[in-house]
């Protein structure tokens, strides 16, 4: 086990791509166990790591989101949400959150939400007198709802990694915690708007609101098509995501009329580039996962957790703290592929429901995406707002408290993540 751990830490510290780190540390462990003949597993494991049928949906999801981005969907969603919240104090902050909830169903990637929404909302918020750091904080904190509310690429990857959990259950399980995060953020945003006296907007005439709704409707039903098809059992995830991609092209070209061939090509190029990041991690995590399974690290991890506390509640909180720590220095996806093969079997061995733990893990790792020192999502929002990262962190503190409350709720009440999936059985 030691050669694998040493290889892992050293390679990670010198800045080697995480995917390469996982492959070579898995191989180092394999070599220590069985010599040179074990190295051959790199081909077999990497191949099976990217061959799961469900992974067909990954490029489709990325492509759909990119098409929506290129097709200028964000403006339409903002216009509609503005009509919903316009007269409330601090309207733009609430709009920022509600747009993220709608957008979540389309992209499933926090950083995409931050860039797409932040570039429109942050300058507008600044113009209307909101603090720049607050605009950055709320944009980043609300965008992490994306990978939690389905459909979500992160969940597809989780289901591929841990084959004993279905993506349908994950999608259904993410709905309540995702909405809970949105409600928690809205509560903080309402409170701060009232306390700081943020502005209201002029009321939107009903006719304008209706038109905004109609314009946004074709795009807003994309997640419904995907989710409706999958959860009802009418279609598989690949069929639904494939249909959504074709539908996104059709509405972009025919209805919105702003999707050119050049933009479609651009979306395809972004799709293969981002798919590469995902597939690289998945392929090599299969090598590391192979070693983890054989080495008994998961069993040792379970043993270690039980020595710290007998209470499952405390064990889960400790694991959440560990995940937050890992998430502060690593992005969601690599953190997930590195720790899931070790932590999930360990927690299941301790009696935690696999679905409950899966959702908790996805929630916590996403929250850590807006915490220092890495917090790429918050860094991006701070850059768009043109404020120092440190000020954006301070402005995010009230939202961190809201997130802590959500984590506590999800830990305490497993039904929040298991109730909807149980209805589908």
């Amino acid at each position, binding site marked *: 086990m030691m050669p694998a751990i040493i290889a892992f830490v050293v390679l990670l510290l010198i800045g*080697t791509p995480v995917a390469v780190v996982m492959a070579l540390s898995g191989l180092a462990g394999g070599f220590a166990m069985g010599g040179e003949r074990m190295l051959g597993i790199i081909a077999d494991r990497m191949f099976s790591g990217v061959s799961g049928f469900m992974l067909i949906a990954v*490029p489709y999801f990325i492509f759909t989101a990119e098409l929506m981005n290129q097709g200028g969907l964000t403006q339409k969603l903002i216009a509609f949400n503005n009509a919903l919240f316009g007269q409330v104090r601090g309207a733009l902050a609430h709009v920022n959150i509600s747009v993220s909830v709608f957008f979540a169903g389309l992209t499933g990637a926090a950083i995409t939400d931050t860039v797409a929404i932040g570039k429109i909302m942050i300058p507008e918020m600044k113009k209307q007198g909101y603090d720049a750091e607050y605009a950055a904080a709320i944009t980043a904190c609300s965008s992490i709802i994306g990978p939690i509310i389905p459909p979500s690429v992160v969940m597809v990857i989780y289901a591929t990694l841990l084959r004993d959990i279905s993506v349908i259950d994950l999608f259904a399980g993410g709905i309540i915690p995702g909405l809970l995060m949105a409600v928690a953020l809205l509560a903080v945003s309402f409170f701060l708007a009232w306390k700081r006296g943020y502005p209201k907007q002029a009321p939107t005439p009903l006719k304008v609101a209706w038109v905004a709704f109609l314009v946004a409707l074709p795009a807003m039903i994309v997640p419904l098509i995907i989710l409706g098809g999958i959860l009802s059992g009418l279609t598989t995830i690949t069929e639904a995501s494939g249909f959504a991609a074709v539908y996104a092209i059709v509405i972009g070209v025919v209805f919105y009329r702003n999707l050119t061939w050049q933009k479609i*090509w651009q979306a395809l190029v972004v799709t293969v*580039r981002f798919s590469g990041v995902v597939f690289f991690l998945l392929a090599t995590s299969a090598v590391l996962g192979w070693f983890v399974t054989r080495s008994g690290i998961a069993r040792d991890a379970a043993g270690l957790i039980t020595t710290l506390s007998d209470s499952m509640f405390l064990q889960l909180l400790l694991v959440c703290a560990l995940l937050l720590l890992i998430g502060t220095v690593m992005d969601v996806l690599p953190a997930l592929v590195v720790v899931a093969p070790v932590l999930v079997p360990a927690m299941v061995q301790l009696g935690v429901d696999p679905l409950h733990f899966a959702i908790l893990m996805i929630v916590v790792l996403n929250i850590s995406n807006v915490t220092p020192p890495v917090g790429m999502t918050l860094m991006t929002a701070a850059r768009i707002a043109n404020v120092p990262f440190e000020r954006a962190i301070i402005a995010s503190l009230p939202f961190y408290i809201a997130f802590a409350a959500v984590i506590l709720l999800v830990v305490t009440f497993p039904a929040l993540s298991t109730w909807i999936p149980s209805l589908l059985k």
Partner: protein
Amino acid sequence: MRFLTPLRRLSDWVNQAAIVLCVACVLVMLGISFTAFTYKLFTGSSLSWTYSLARLFLPWIGFLSMTISLRYGEHVAMTLLVRTLPRALLKLAAALCLGVIALFGALLLWYGWGYFESARQVYMVSDQIQVSAKFTAVVLPLSGAIILLHLVQGFALLEHFLDDETIIEELIDAGDGEKRS
């Protein structure tokens, strides 16, 4: 280092070819999935061959897109600590990283070739369509070779010399749909 210039040009050309091939695979796979969906919608029954056929393109997309993301330095790495090192040590760490990536590429090429040679089974897409496993297995040594070729780009493959500002600027530009080299 003049010999590197034609190799870098070759690496760029191979990368462009990989992008085109990968996009073609995505589109063909999408066409197959969409056909399956519409057939099911209108007839209520499934086309049995669509799953197996679409799946054949997945390893190609998976492995080729890996080389593309590596070429653009879009792979995920933890460079927060290493970037605090003095310049000389930072260069040493970056050189070590390139060596490690070379080792990975060489292993993928060597053992991928063995995997390709031993792939003897046949995918039964349907009674009429049967595809040799070599069609998908060949992408392993191929991507290993491409990774080794891309190493001629040197430190441009790594994030070691980029600060957070630059990375974020690139992200925001990408959000604009601007084309990046």
